[in-house]
């Protein structure tokens, strides 16, 4: 970051555009993303960082669930006595207990773990398959491309929850109700999204001069795809990935809610818990619904904010770049800039470029 000339203030001078483009051309796709993230400001910056913090908390909770949760997800008794059935929140059970005498707090915390496991698996599966198919389809074209486009369009047109339901229905018959089965059911939904985006960028990158040059020099298709297409195409993926991660949490819970997700004996799962809580709701008991529901909404919100923030930052049509202050060495000394960090400060070029 080019902060050497200016002290750190409320408004950090961003890397100059020139430095940004130079770096990106040298280091390829991911560097362009980090530069854009550093240049973020205003609402996108807020969303990005709020999302990142929530996501980090979610991951920490999930990873350290056994250390954080007072009990295991299937503990219904401790110290020789059973937990109360549908007990309201108190000192022993902060979030109350369920109809099965399970501790809601523990189940909520362990639910994060299950959600993370399934989410990571689903994202990895669909990322690998979607990117691979998209690259091959976009680069080679031909009949394979046409068929794949048709199939993916059909999958895309399908109501996504319905697709996951059908997949869950089929897979649960094949491989039981574990984490992998749930992840596979969700994967089916997201492959088309990666495929579409990657194929489109592969198509346009294929025509780029540097790819043509590589081909002219006799590079094999596998080399062209790996070395030249991949780096260009992969930039469009982070936004989809975070959005999919958010979606995956909801879809998993939807499957669990319908009894098609993870078996209740295997892990704690928010959707299953919410389904069990519907009867409690009719009886006016709020804690079995509120806590797992809130946890899920916060987790989804974290990933959504992260994805939206990234999108606003990376998408050039949405980006509003803050213009850096131009220092006129003759008239302005550095100290005055530190003092007048407000946008309205005189002596600074002010304005926001739309687009």
């Amino acid at each position, binding site marked *: 970051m080019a902060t050497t000339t200016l002290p750190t203030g409320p408004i950090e001078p961003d890397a100059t555009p020139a430095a940004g483009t130079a770096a990106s051309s040298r280091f390829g796709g991911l560097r362009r993303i980090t530069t854009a993230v550093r240049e973020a400001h205003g609402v996108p910056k807020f969303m990005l960082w709020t999302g990142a913090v929530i996501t980090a908390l979610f991951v920490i909770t999930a990873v350290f669930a056994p250390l954080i949760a007072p009990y295991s997800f299937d503990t219904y008794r401790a110290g020789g006595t059973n937990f109360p059935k549908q007990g309201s929140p108190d000192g022993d059970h902060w979030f109350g207990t369920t109809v099965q005498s399970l501790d809601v707090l523990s189940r909520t915390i362990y639910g994060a773990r299950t959600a993370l496991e399934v989410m990571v698996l689903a994202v990895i599966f669909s990322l690998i398959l979607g990117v691979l198919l998209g690259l091959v389809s976009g680069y080679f074209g031909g009949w394979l491309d046409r068929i794949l486009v048709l199939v993916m369009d059909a999958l895309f047109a399908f109501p996504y*929850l319905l697709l996951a339901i059908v997949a869950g229905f089929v897979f649960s018959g094949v491989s039981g109700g574990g984490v992998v089965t749930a992840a596979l059911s969700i994967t089916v939904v997201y492959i088309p999204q990666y495929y579409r985006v990657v194929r489109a960028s592969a198509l346009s990158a294929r025509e780029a001069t540097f790819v043509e040059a590589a081909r002219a020099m006799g590079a094999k298709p596998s080399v062209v795809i790996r070395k030249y297409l991949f780096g260009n195409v992969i930039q469009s993926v982070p936004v989809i990935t975070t959005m999919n991660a958010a979606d995956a949490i909801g879809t998993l819970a939807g499957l669990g809610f319908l009894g098609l997700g993870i078996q209740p004996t295997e892990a704690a799962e928010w959707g299953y818990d919410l389904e069990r809580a519907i009867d409690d709701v009719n009886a006016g008991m709020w804690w079995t619904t509120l806590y797992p529901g809130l946890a899920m*909404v916060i987790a989804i*919100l974290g990933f*959504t904010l992260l994805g939206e923030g990234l999108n606003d930052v990376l998408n050039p049509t949405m980006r509003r770049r803050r213009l850096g202050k131009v220092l006129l060495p003759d008239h302005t000394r550095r100290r005055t800039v530190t003092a007048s960090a407000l946008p309205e400060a005189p002596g600074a070029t002010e304005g926001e470029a739309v687009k």
Partner: protein
Amino acid sequence: MSNTSKQSGSLRRYILTRIALAVPMVLILLILVFVMMRVAPGDPISSSQGGKLNATELAARRHAAGFDAPLYQQFWDYLKSVVTLNFGTTFSDRRSVRDIIIENGGATLTLTAGALVFAAVIGIPVGLLAGRYRDRPVDVLSRLASTISYASPVFVTAPLLMLAFGTTSGQASPLIQLNVPTQTHILIVDAALDGDWDAVTDILQHLLLPSIALGLLIVGVFIRMIRINLIQSLQGDYIEAARARGVRERHVVARHGFRNALVPVITVLGLQVAMLLGGAVLTEKIFNWPGIGRQLIDYINQRDYVAVQGIVTVFALVVVVISLLIDFVNALIDPRVRY
């Protein structure tokens, strides 16, 4: 004269092309559904009836249902059932899937319509406000709200709504016994046709919470889409031209901005139908709403393959047909769409 005939010609050509393009799409969808349903090991009969019947009876049932026929034969039968709009007969209760659609479709239609109305009533004004006052508090608030609504699945918002309003909204009370003649299979329309306004009120009361729960799922998308459309249309040259002519800012925004921002709403609607149908399945289960989605869940729990296959096929076809219709409407409104 010649100009108009040329235009309608291009519209007709566009519609015909679009239909022709939809045919392979439908075929692929059907193949997908068929393949997915056949990926499962064993066959529908043994997985639903296994354990209840002995081997010879199972074989007889399998034969009767055609599950021992070669796959292409089965696919052909499936295609025939789709073309004749029959969609097969369920195992568990011997209902024709077509009857399920006719009898329960009305409830799903009512629910999704209610959700759309809610989403439009809330989403359009909020989206316009947010776009008009970009980056001002109202915009930030509405973005936050729409993100939260997007992040909240139906099965979280619905129970919370029930907890908050369940007793006051009359949701908890059972539907009053309706003695209205069945005409359209859409309960509320039947009641209205019969002139039974108490029944209509009661149905509307019961419809309120499910519609809000389902509508909240898509209202965020509405807000976001309209906001972006307005922002983009306010950047158009014609806006600048209007301002340069001295048109008052309020008129610029209302006449030139809003109108153009609202046209894409139709497209948004089309894109949301798939999401609505998925959400309807969950909403119907939560609120015990007697629609197709709840039927689907019941048949899934009974592992009734034919019913699941038939209902899923209908859902897929509905999505395709609606996206076709949306394209036609778009082509009618916006000549640029027809090339």
